[in-house]
């Protein structure tokens, strides 16, 4: 409402500048740890001991990465993180696929095949999102024992599917709530059954929410430490637990550069998932919120 339009533009510019300054500050704040990790993972150990964590490497080396991957001491054997990386993959891929598919089915039933008490059931499923991990540790250990899945990758997959179901159901239910019922009616009249409608009509229209769910589940399952530490044996131990063992080993010299490289290796898959599908993630989160 300034009388002078020039003044209005100027104050607008100032606000812009302040806004960008704040954003840049935050960006630096968030990127600094990544920078420290990257820089120090390609330095020889002596340079780190020299003191300046923020300095660029004088002698560039990939040895810490190689060591972290296949020769660092984890537990008894000098295997590096690679076997545990594959353990994590073997756990994450089925856990994500199963929990996403089941979440989609749940969302489909809860919105398109309504039954008495469906909202109550959904409310109860939402509880799964709020139960802290620690509470289920002992009952879950008992169940895994009874099922004969204790210490196996299959057991971990089951734990993560059960725990992820609340979230995946929530995502798909809200997405499908906005999906027109008339399409389902049309498909019923066209002669499609329960699974045909799901497979031919719903799933092909669920791209954005599948991406959101997969990213969400992938990061959660990949980054989980507590379940991995509690329920895995030495052969099924996921990457996060192995990284902890690498970093907190009490024998020998602390190889910080190897630790940094190992931590980056552990973070790499989730980073890649975000970079590849991040824009779909935002699009998917917005899909239910904004009409049109």
């Amino acid at each position, binding site marked *: 409402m300034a009388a002078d339009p020039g003044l209005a533009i100027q104050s607008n510019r100032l606000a812009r500048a302040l806004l960008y300054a704040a954003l840049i500050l935050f960006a630096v704040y968030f990127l600094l740890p990544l920078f420290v990790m990257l820089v120090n993972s390609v330095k020889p150990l002596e340079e780190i001991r020299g003191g300046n964590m923020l300095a660029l490497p004088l002698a560039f080396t990939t040895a810490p990465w190689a060591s972290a991957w296949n020769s660092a001491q984890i537990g008894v054997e000098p295997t590096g993180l690679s076997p545990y990386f594959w353990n994590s993959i073997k756990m994450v891929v089925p856990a994500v696929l199963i929990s996403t598919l089941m979440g989609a089915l749940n969302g489909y039933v809860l919105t398109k095949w309504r039954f008495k008490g469906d909202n109550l059931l959904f409310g109860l499923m939402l509880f799964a999102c709020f139960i802290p991990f620690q509470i289920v540790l002992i009952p879950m250990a008992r169940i895994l024992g009874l099922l004969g899945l204790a210490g196996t990758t299959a057991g971990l997959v089951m734990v993560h599917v059960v725990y992820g179901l609340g979230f995946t159901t929530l995502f798909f239910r809200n997405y499908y709530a906005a999906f*027109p019922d*008339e399409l389902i*009616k049309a*498909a*019923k*009249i*066209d*002669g499609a059954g329960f699974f045909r409608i799901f497979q*031919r009509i719903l799933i092909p229209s669920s791209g954005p929410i599948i991406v959101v769910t997969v990213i969400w589940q992938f990061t959660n399952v990949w980054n989980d430490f507590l379940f991995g530490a509690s329920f895995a044996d030495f052969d099924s131990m996921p990457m996060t637990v192995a990284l902890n063992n690498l970093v907190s080993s009490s024998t020998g010299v602390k190889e910080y550069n190897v630790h940094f490289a190992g931590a980056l290796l552990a973070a790499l898959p989730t980073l890649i998932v975000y970079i590849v599908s991040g824009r779909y993630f935002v699009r998917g989160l917005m899909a239910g919120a904004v009409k049109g």
Partner: protein
Amino acid sequence: MASLSVDGIEKKFGATEVLKGIDIEIESGEFLVLVGPSGCGKSTLLNLIAGLESITAGEIRIDGDRVNERHPKDRDIAMVFQSYALYPNMSVADNMAFGLEMRGMPKAERDAAVAEVAKLLQIEPLLARRPAQLSGGQRQRVAMGRALVRDPKIFLLDEPLSNLDAKLRVEMRTEIKKLHQRLGATIVYVTHDQIEAMTLASRIAIMNAGELQQLGTPRELYDRPTNIFVATFIGSPAMNLIPATLALTEGSVTVAIGKGDTQEATLPLPSDDGLQEHVGRDVILGLRSEHITDTPVADGDGQTRSPLTCHVEVTEPTGPDTLALIRIGDIEAMARLGADTPIRPGKAARLSVDMAKACLFDPETERRIGS
């Protein structure tokens, strides 16, 4: 093509009674329009016929076979939805072929059937497109095509034109009528638009608050509505409802407009069938605007026009004729005058009323009385 019987259908959602015993019988090849204000249960009835909702009581028969327990896909019906409900992830051709595919028709036959219907509806250039790439009118055509390609026993159309703009709606209305005449299909069509109902239907079922008010040809509903609801729902402008009293003048029954002492006009009725018992009682005189005109009253046999003196409040030229808001005492009514009428607003005028077309209603029961 098939006949359809709706026999004593009731539907409850919990404690709410949505349909209270509907009976409708249509022959093969009829075009039935279900019309009524929103919330009258017309779409629910359509969903019951389709099998998308369960029936609380009563029976639905297609070609004489009870279909109550049949799944929608086994009723051999096709439905066109208000939103068109085209599958967004499929091309137009796949949308049309989906129902055939679900019924296990081989690909070559499906393609041939789709091509034939696409030609009929002139949507061949659209076959490879997605629904999102179509205009409203094109989507409407594709939705019709998806129903036609199935060649079902009965077509169910749920307000198929209400999402189109006014001009396109009129075009598609004619288009649907042409299709019906060409294919001789049995159609049940739901709308809240009384003009669509009048123009399309071979018979109209007019509903209100879960009850069937009247089932008949458009002409019957227009000329001989069974009650005040039907009388005012059909026709635009709505039928004039004028409080009046029945009297006996020189041995014949007449309608005296206005109540008690303030009688404004007395109009003789050409027929007094079934009216004697109402003589001396209050009635409601129903007159459509086109029956109050500036046509002069001619002498002679079979003359049913009666003069009426009134005050003209407003005139509204519509092109083919002029609508006039008139006042008879303190009662307002719409009259339809000639396009070049000399009658001007603010003045008294002498009009004529065609009493052969008048309807009389009982103010208590709101039902029509007399023959």
